[in-house]
Structure formats: C-alpha cells, structure tokens
C-alpha cells in the first residue's frame, strides 16, 4: 500500500489519473453521449447539407458547432476519444508484448545472441517514425498492386482506397484489414521495453531459482514465460503505458500532415485548417473548428504522460526526469506516519522477495522480512536521512560513513537493516554493504545471520 500512497501524494499523478479516467469514461459511453444515426459515417456525423461548406457556430443541433460539410464537432470529439483510446492502448499492448518477448528471449540466450539482438533493437532507434510509416504504407500498396488490385492513397482524408476487380486473395484481405499506422507505431516503440526487460532478465537468470528450474529439466520456453517474464514486467508495463499518449499524438500528426492514418481528431483539424490558417480565418473567429479538438489532443497527451511519469517515479526514483522530491526524501518527510505502514511494505515487496528468497541471502532475508518491525517508537535519526539521500545520489562513500555511524550508536537499526537488505539485492557484489549488514545484525544480537553476511563479504573480497 505504500506505493499507492506515494503515488497519490503528488497532485500531478492525481491529475494524470483523473484525465485518463475521464477519457476512459467518454470512450466507453460514447454511444450514450452522442448516439449514431443514419447520417453517421465512422466517427463523423453530418447535421446538415454536406454541400454547405462554411462552418457554423454552436447551435441546438450541434453543441460545439460544425465543420465545412456540416460535420458535427461534438460527435467526432466523443467518438474520436474512443478511437484514440483503442489506438493508443493497441500500440502500447503491441509494443509491450513484442518488447517483452524480444528482450527476454535475447536475455535468456545471452552472450553472442543477446549482443546481436540488442544491436538490432538499437538499430531501430535510428529510424525516424515518419519514414517508417510511409514505407510500410507503400509496401502494402505495391503488394496490393502486384496482386492485381488497385490502391489509391489519401482520398479526401478518409483513408486509403483498395479495390479488386475480382475476389481478392487472402493475403490481400489481411492487408486491407490491418492499419499500417498502428503496425508501424508498434514497430518503432518496442525498443525501450525490450531494453529494460533484457537488463532485468540478464540479472535474474543467474539467480538460483532459475538455475534450479533448469536443473529440474524445465524448457527454455517454460523458464522464460513462467519465471523470467513475470519477474520483470513491472517497469515494462510503465514504459509501454507512456506510449499511449505519444502514439495518439503521433497518429494525429501523421493524419494532419497528410501521410495517411485515420485519426478522427487529426482529420477534424485538417478539414478545418483552412478556416484557421487560411485567408480571412482566425483562431478566435472560428474557434470551434480548432479549440475543442486541440484541447482534447493536448489533454490526452498530458494525462497519459503525467500518469506514466508518476508510475515510473514510483517504480524507480532515480529515473525521475522532473528532479522533484524523490521518493526517498519523501520517506523521511512522512516520518512517523510510515511507522504504521511499515508492516504494509512487506506485502509490496512480496514479489521481489520471492526472488530474494532464492538467492544466497536465503536464510537471512526470509527470516528478517518475517520478523515484525520492532522499534517503531524510536524517532528517525537525522543521519539516516543523510545516508538515504547519499544513496539516492549514488554517493556511496558518504552513505557508508553515515550508516556505520548510526550502527555504532545503535540508532534506527530496524530501518537500516531493511535498507541494507534492499541494497544487497541491488548490489549483490558490494562487500561493503554485506559488511554493514553484518554489523547491523551483530548489534541486534543475531549472531548467526551476521556471521553469514560477514562470510559473504569475505568471499567477495577474496
């Protein structure tokens, strides 16, 4: 529950979640908010004669006015939200699935294969999305053409036209069904997911529980799907969630500049653009052509970005690009409150503990995590804050100095022990941290566990 509370302690995260929820509600209840009728075509609804080429201001028939051709702005806004949500989530899910598979397979095989595969992933980073979008559409086009069909691009912003004079072959039917923009955005957004999953799998796969699974005769597929992927999805989900907003904005951009794609919001803007930036037009004069849809697009992007940043910060305080109050500092500010929630923390770490349980620290971490925290009444010592801040800044020398000071004076031993167990998990090869852990345990009188920690430190230094 601590993570949830951290998440909600920032108003940015609240705002992000609120906006995303709002769009979800609009997307789900679109048929109620603006029921389609016989004049509806896709996400567009005509509320007058389509030969009338001037946009009309808001009236009773159309709450937010109309575009040239009497297309209702409100209807497209609502149904566009539904489309945008579907599109963004599809890209994110596609990127997540492909990235996770790619990263974990590469990591599982390791060595040479891993190098080649990750090099390929890096190569994708040098490919501008716009070029990819155009290329994929053209490839589909020439394929359709070589199969005997007719392909026409950009028909009045309402998408491509594919026509066959005869029953189309199955491959062509498949090509007609998939959205090339969706596919190309997935192709160009899976790399960060693959990278992070790969890193986690590389560290996980040498842990004992994987090796014992392998010794029991588990197949690579079983190990990858049953062990490696479930243990490394967390950050991957967050990275993929960040794609939702950006991919919808990209889709709208591509549609707006006329490179294909069928973003309803993008089409709305491109139909209305001449009334804003054409002669005699103006932002304020024909505001309903521009403002509502712009606000929708910007809000959609902002909402998902805030949510993504918030989730990322909760998972990995160091990655906080805003450089705001980091989670570790926040821990201090909460001081006493945290004491009550300390027992909650056990359940959050449960999943990562299942990893730790299998490691060399087996005996230690299991027993210690199961021990209920003892000394809540004790005030947090200011030096503990210094130590944690130093760790957050990766300033290990200061941190170690501060921690040993605290241990020597038997201050906040409980917290320090928990910290040490956390650090040991991250930096398993640091003899100093093992020694510190030993010191804490000695002070607490748990001599046999302390002995194990010291032994580990000795092994590392030799």
């Amino acid at each position, binding site marked *: 529950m601590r993570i949830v509370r951290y998440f909600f302690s920032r108003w940015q995260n609240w705002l992000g979640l609120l906006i995303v929820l709002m769009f979800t509600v609009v997307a789900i209840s679109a048929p109620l908010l603006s029921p389609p009728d016989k004049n509806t075509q896709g996400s567009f609804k005509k509320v007058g004669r389509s030969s009338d080429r001037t946009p009309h201001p808001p009236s009773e028939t159309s709450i937010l006015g109309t575009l040239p051709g009497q297309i209702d702005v409100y209807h497209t806004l609502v149904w566009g939200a539904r489309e945008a949500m579907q599109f963004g989530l599809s890209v994110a899910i596609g990127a997540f699935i492909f990235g996770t598979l790619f990263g974990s397979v590469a990591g599982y095989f390791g060595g040479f294969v891993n190098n080649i595969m990750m*090099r*390929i992933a*890096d*190569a*994708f*980073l*040098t*490919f*501008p*999305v*716009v*070029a*990819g979008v*155009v*290329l*994929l*559409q*053209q*490839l589909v*086009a*020439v*394929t*359709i*053409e*070589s*199969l005997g069909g007719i*392909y*026409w*691009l*950009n028909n009045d912003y309402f998408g491509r036209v594919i026509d066959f004079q005869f029953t189309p072959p199955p491959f062509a039917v498949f090509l007609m069904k998939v959205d090339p923009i969706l596919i190309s955005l997935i192709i160009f957004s899976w790399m960060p997911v693959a990278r992070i999953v790969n890193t986690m799998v590389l560290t996980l796969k040498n842990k004992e529980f994987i090796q014992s699974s392998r010794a029991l005769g588990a197949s690579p597929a079983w190990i990858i799907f049953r062990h490696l992927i479930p243990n490394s999805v967390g950050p991957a989900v967050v990275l993929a969630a960040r794609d939702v907003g950006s991919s919808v*904005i990209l889709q*709208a*951009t591509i549609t*707006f*500049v*006329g*490179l*294909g794609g069928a973003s309803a919001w993008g089409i709305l*803007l491109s139909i209305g*653009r001449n009334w*804003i*930036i*054409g*002669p005699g*037009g*103006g*932002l304020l004069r024909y505001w309903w052509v*521009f403002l509502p849809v*712009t606000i929708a*697009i*910007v809000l959609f*992007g*902002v909402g998902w*970005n805030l949510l993504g940043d918030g989730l990322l910060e909760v998972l990995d305080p160091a990655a906080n*690009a*805003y*450089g705001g109050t980091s989670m570790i500092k926040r821990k201090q500010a909460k001081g006493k409150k945290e004491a009550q929630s300390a027992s909650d923390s056990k359940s959050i770490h449960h999943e990562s503990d299942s990893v730790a349980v299998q490691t060399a620290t087996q005996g230690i971490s299991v027993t210690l995590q199961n021990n209920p925290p003892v000394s809540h009444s004790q005030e947090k010592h200011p030096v503990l804050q210094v130590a944690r801040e130093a760790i957050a*800044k*990766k*300033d290990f020398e200061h941190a170690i100095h501060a921690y040993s000071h605290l241990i020597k004076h038997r201050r906040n031993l409980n917290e320090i022990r928990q910290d040490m167990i956390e650090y040991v998990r991250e930096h398993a090869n640091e003899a100093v941290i093992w020694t510190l852990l030993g010191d804490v345990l000695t002070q607490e009188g748990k001599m046999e566990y302390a002995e194990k920690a010291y032994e580990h430190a000795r092994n590392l230094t030799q």
Partner: protein
Amino acid sequence: MPPILQFLIRRIFSAFISLIIITMVLYSGFMLTPPEARARIYLPPGKGGERASEQYIENIIKENHLREPYLVQYFYWAKSLLQGSWGYSPTLNADVLPSLLHRTPATLELALYSLLMLIPLGLASGLVSGWRPGSVFDSSFRGLAFLGTSTPSFIVSIILISILYIQLDWLAPGRIDVKTELQMFRSGFVEYTGALTLDSLLNKRFDIFIIALKHLIMPVFTLSIYHWATLGRITRASIMNERGKEYIVAARARGVKESKLIWKHALRAILAPSLTAMALSAASIVTGLFVTEIIYGLTGISQIIVIAMSSYPDAPAALGFSVYSVIMVLGLMLILDFIQATLDPRVREEVLKA
C-alpha cells in the same frame, strides 16, 4: 594521426555498421512482400502502374536475383545503393537519389538553425534552473518545459501561423515568396549551397537574407521548442545530482566565483549525459524536422514523401527516403558525439588514451 581524427574514424565506422544493420532489417521487412512487388523498386521510367507486363516484371526479377535467398538479395540491393542507383520514382518523375540530394540543403538549413538554437538554450536553461531548484526561474522553466513537451508540433504551428502570419503578417510560411523568387531569378542570384540564408549572404543580398530568415523563424521555433524542453529537463536533473558533489564544494571553498562554477565546472560535467540523451532522441528530432517541413511547406526532402503519398504507390521513393533519413539520423548522432568529445574533458581523455 591526431587522436580526435582516430576517434572520428572509429565513430564513422560504427555508424556504418549501424547503417548495415538497419538496412538489413529494412530489407527483411521488404522480403515479406512477394517478388513481384519487390520488382517494382527496379522499374525504369514509364513502366509504372499497369504498364509493366507480367513478362517484363519476370525479367526484372531474374535480373535482380529477387528469388534468391535473403542474404544474396540484400547484397545485390546494397550494391545498387552504393553504386548510387536508388531507383526511379514514378510520382516524382525523377531518379530518387538526385531528388533527395537536391532537396537536402533546405532540410539541413532548418536542422542547423534549430540545433544552434536548442542546444545552447536547452543546456543553459536546464543549468540555471537546476542550480537553484525551487527558484522563480526554475518554476517558470518547468512550467514552460511542460507546455513545450505536451503541445504537439502541429498545434504549435497552427497557432504560430494564425497569429504571426494571418493576423500580424510579420512572418510567413513556405521557403520564400513568389515575388522574391522571381526577383532573384531576374537579378542573377547564384545558388552556391542551396541554403537560402547562406546563398543570400554570398550574393551580398541582405534584403533576401532578411526575407529568408523571416520564413525560417516559425519552423525553427516549432522544431526547437519540444527538444529544448526535453534537453532542459535532462540537464536540470543531472545538474541537481552534480551540484552537491565534492569538487563543486571544494571549488567554492577555494573561492571560485559562483558564475564560473556553473558555466565552467558544472557545465562540463553535465555535457556528456545531456548530449548522450540528445543523441538517443536523434531519430525523433529528424521526425520532427520532416513534420515541421511539411506543415510549413518548406521544400526539403520530406516533400518527396508528400508527393509519393499523394497519388499512386511509389515504393522506390519511400525506400530511398527511409535509407536517406537513417543516414541523416546517424549523421546527427555523429555530430553530437563529436561535440561531446571535444568539449567534455573526460571523453577527450579517453580518446587520447585509446
């Protein structure tokens, strides 16, 4: 050989390897289409669309080894790329490579001015706001940066055009207006580089220089704002890490002036992480470049995809454009690497050692 040259050669070599990998990936995507479709990138002028008979296509397939295994096909395709035959584009009515090269100066002009704007400004604003987090400058920077990253470029450009062009008529979209172009043509304006701002200076025509600048301001601003904000944020985050380091404290204790601390010591230290992050988003800068060009009607290389997407299928143009834009991204990465290597003492030392 001077070490910096060695460094450059090493980087160019590694960029070349990346180019090979990405073209291999590109071609493997192309392999998913039937050979008859692949043959269309080799069609000569006048044979596009329905006009190529089946027998004709079959001949092209044989000639270009399009039924051979993947690696053989890739080899022949890469060979033809290296020989400069990038295919004939039916929509452009011209060969792909010359059309790309002809339009490059305009694109490079926009890229150059944008980078010259956004790198110094991004670094400086990130530095100043991260040095004193919570100050007025910091909070206004964070607000602006948030606005910059969350407003899509096409919306920024709609707003800019409608205010600065339609309402106030100060600036203009497009590369140059018709009247000036005609006048340039009559007065014997020589195109040395193809970039208008440079050419007008070389021709000593300062009036045209001013006009060309007026046409560049809006696109440069649109392109810079997003990446300025991203670079500024990264710089801000790394300077906040750096600020408490011992060497800064020690320098301050020695009596080094605060301004010198920021602009000499801290700046050097954060240059590497900031520019590395920038190099990683090089592809997104180039994408932004294309989008900006299309919106403002600058006739750079993105004009090719606009034309290619306007009527019937044109795979050679799309394929050529993709390869060319990858080369542009790799070039941009190389330049950022080079800046970093010459300015960051740690990287420079590493270069000297190697």
